[in-house]
């Protein structure tokens, strides 16, 4: 029925294959064999959501349980949404074309702050009350979320029944088991939520009360009776043997990351002070070379993909990276599979590794020095020296590359004009290096691209206390960078700071922002991460209507003793460590990476053993 209705309009929308499912690798179960169903919702379009590795893992995991089913749901594009609203087509899942409101769990993955309004939009399209408090108490339609953004889920608290903190491979199934059991017992939703709050990793925001100080900062977050005062995130203890899919859904249309990815490690040893992922995914754990190679091969065989990527925060930090690459190359060459290794670090990018990559296909090289001067790189603990960068560029140029992309952040703590000029100077020295090499690729000009992003202070990082640079400051820095570039061989690109400001507001926001998000969405905000759809005015108006201001959240310096909105959530990164690191940052002192020396971030207290 629903499918016929949808098919009537599919040829009127762009890339209809995104809206009908049926891809190779999709898992379709008979509803009568399913006791608990999970709609895995990605709050963005198919093209982006289908690139997300976490969804592939949890999709396969839930479906690996015979009586549980997981189906995929994405935000429709603007053209299809218009038709859905006009024709009364509810948001539906791709596998069995079932309305989202027929699912037991409606789970969103929160990967970036600028997708928040899409959640509200999708709930409305599904016909589910947007505010959790407006939903009835039947044990059904549990609206939940996980992913990195839920390390501070407070701005989203009004819309969700519960949040899943940390890694989902175990806790998702525990939650579904509890649901099944309580459903059989005829429990209500509130009874279920109370029980769920006792599972490690489950945060039920309605069971916590927030009070505020007169200056608007949080006074306290208090757990109600029989509810844990602090919610701890979940970690997979045996990462090497944790569930990993043996098949992916292979889309028909081209998507952002259209390939096999094998997660080779989780966590990061580096401790770059701006990087939230580097802290919230701790501890560092590796998958053995044997398992990586096996999983890669199985996935390539089952999906038929022609590209394989090794995914992690820093793939070259794997202690067996040479074994992994060496083990994969004979297979990938024979089977015409292109091996790509994203996230390589400048300091350990060897010629051998590059030769291996180049054997298959020559793709572009991207480095992220993040800051223009050594002083600022020390502040952010990006332990990369210019010498290392130059050495790597040299290897690359001698190996036939003639283009390098350099990533920087703008508006970092303690940043001065010298640091901005430093970006242009560094790019210039890369160009000078190129022309100094007799072995450079003949007959080709060098091209260095500088790409800058506005720094966003994030929770659970040593910079969570830091004010974000204001719009005026960023505009000044961007102009300064343009003026500092004197060569036509350097190209600079940057983003409008508006989205970064909003990101900073939402990342460190409190529960009062729920009303702002709601109003911004009502004003028309959706797809905020898409430049063509983002409208700062929707948000500006929402803030003033709620009597709140963005500067309070984004560009205010926070004291070490301020209660952060997320302080009742434990990601095992201790406040003492964050303060210690923040102080070191202001003294431009670096912290060695975890393999060299344990920095006592706090995670070993939870795991009960040293990481190395």
């Amino acid at each position, binding site marked *: 029925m629903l499918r016929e209705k949808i098919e009537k309009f*599919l*040829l009127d929308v762009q*890339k*209809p*294959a995104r809206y*009908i*499912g*049926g*891809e*190779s690798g999709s898992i379709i179960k008979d509803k009568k064999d399913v006791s608990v169903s999970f709609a895995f919702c990605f709050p963005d379009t198919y093209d982006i959501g289908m690139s997300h590795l976490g969804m592939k893992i949890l999709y396969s995991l839930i479906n690996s349980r015979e009586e549980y089913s997981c189906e995929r749901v994405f935000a429709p594009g603007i053209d299809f949404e218009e038709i859905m609203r006009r024709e009364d087509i509810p948001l539906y899942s791709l596998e069995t074309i079932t309305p989202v409101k027929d699912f037991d769990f409606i789970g969103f993955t929160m990967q970036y702050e600028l997708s928040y309004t899409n959640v509200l939009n999708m709930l409305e399209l599904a016909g589910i009350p947007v505010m959790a408090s407006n939903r009835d108490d039947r044990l059904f339609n549990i609206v939940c979320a996980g992913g990195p953004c839920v390390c501070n889920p407070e701005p989203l608290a009004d819309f969700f029944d519960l949040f899943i903190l940390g890694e989902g491979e175990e806790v998702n199934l525990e939650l579904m088991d509890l649901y099944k059991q309580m459903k059989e017992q005829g429990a209500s939703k509130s009874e279920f939520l109370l029980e769920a709050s006792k599972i490690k990793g489950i945060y039920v925001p309605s069971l916590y009360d927030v009070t505020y100080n007169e200056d608007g900062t949080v006074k306290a977050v208090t757990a109600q009776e029989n509810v844990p005062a602090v919610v701890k995130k979940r970690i997979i203890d045996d990462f090497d043997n944790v569930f990993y899919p043996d098949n992916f859904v*292979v889309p*028909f*249309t*081209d998507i952002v990351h259209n390939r096999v990815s094998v997660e080779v490690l989780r966590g990061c040893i580096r401790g770059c002070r701006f990087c939230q992922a580097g802290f919230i995914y701790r501890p560092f754990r590796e998958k053995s070379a044997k398992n990586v190679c096996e999983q890669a091969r199985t996935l*390539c*065989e*089952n*999906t*038929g*993909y*022609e590209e394989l990527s090794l995914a992690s925060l820093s793939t070259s930090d794997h202690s067996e990276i040479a074994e992994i690459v060496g083990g994969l190359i004979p297979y990938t060459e024979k*089977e*015409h599979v292109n091996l790509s290794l994203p996230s390589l670090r400048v300091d350990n990018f060897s010629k051998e590794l590059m030769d291996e990559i180049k054997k298959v*296909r020559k793709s572009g090289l991207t480095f992220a020095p993040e800051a223009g001067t050594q002083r600022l790189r020390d502040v952010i603990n990006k332990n990369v020296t210019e010498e290392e960068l130059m050495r790597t560029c040299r290897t690359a140029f001698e190996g036939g590359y003639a283009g390098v992309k350099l990533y920087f952040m703008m508006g970092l703590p303690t940043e001065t004009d010298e640091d901005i000029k430093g970006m242009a100077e560094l790019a210039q020295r890369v160009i000078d290096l190129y022309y100094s090499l007799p072995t450079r690729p003949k007959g080709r000009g060098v091209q260095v691209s500088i790409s800058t992003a506005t720094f966003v202070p994030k929770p659970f990082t040593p910079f969570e206390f830091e004010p974000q640079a204001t719009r005026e400051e960023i505009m000044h820095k961007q102009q300064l960078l343009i003026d500092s570039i004197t060569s036509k061989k350097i190209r600079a690109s940057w983003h409008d700071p508006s989205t970064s400001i909003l990101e900073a507001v939402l990342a460190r926001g409190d529960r009062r922002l729920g009303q702002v998000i709601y109003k911004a969405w009502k004003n028309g905000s959706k797809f905020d991460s898409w430049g063509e759809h983002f409208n700062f005015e929707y948000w500006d108006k929402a803030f003033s209507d709620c009597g709140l201001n963005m500067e309070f959240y984004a560009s205010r310096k926070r004291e070490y003793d301020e209660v952060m909105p997320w302080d009742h959530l434990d990601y095992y990164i201790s406040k003492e460590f964050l303060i210690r690191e923040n102080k070191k940052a202001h003294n431009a002192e670096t912290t060695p990476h975890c393999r060299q020396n344990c920095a006592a971030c706090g995670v070993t207290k939870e795991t009960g053993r040293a990481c190395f």
Partner: protein
Amino acid sequence: MIKIRAVYEKRGRAKYISHLDLNRCMQRTFKRSGIPVWYTEGFNPHIYINFALPLSLGYESRCEIMDFNITEGVPFKELIESLNKAMPEGIFISKIYNPTTKHTAIKYADFKITFSGDVAESFNNFMSRDQINTIKKTKKGEKEIDLKPDINVISLEETDGKTILVLRLPAGTEKNLNPSLVTDLFVPEFGNTEILSVERVAILDDKQKEFV
């Protein structure tokens, strides 16, 4: 290297796979199937697949044709089984053989168009005109053409409140007419109908015999 021609159906959800995406989809299907398929030998090796005719997005077909090569002999039955196991929902190989003709021998294609309601009489009236003129967009620009000499009505009948029309139209590299050129004129004019489905049911050579 052995030349292979496969005849396959494209139905259901698979009808939304565009021609561009179909090539990628087949590349991966061949890889999944594990058959000893032949790769091109250029700088960027890929599986060689040659589709006889593109099929418009949203159309079903019972007779799509693609050619590829295998590097060693495999029984056809085995090839069909391996490939069909790896195919996405809606695509199904019905026949495999060694081709003796080239795709350029294709001259016509038959399309089964299902309309809602009884439109048989109106369609006959539509066809009884002296000329059926429309604007065809080509790479060089737009030009007005008369479709009538090229439209061959094979059958037209009304059943169960639906009208099923089978049209034979020129197809192939020399001259190609999409049935939408006809229906885009007819449907708005008649008004009270919509197209429920379009299916390619036959591919023919210059003698109007089935192309093999």
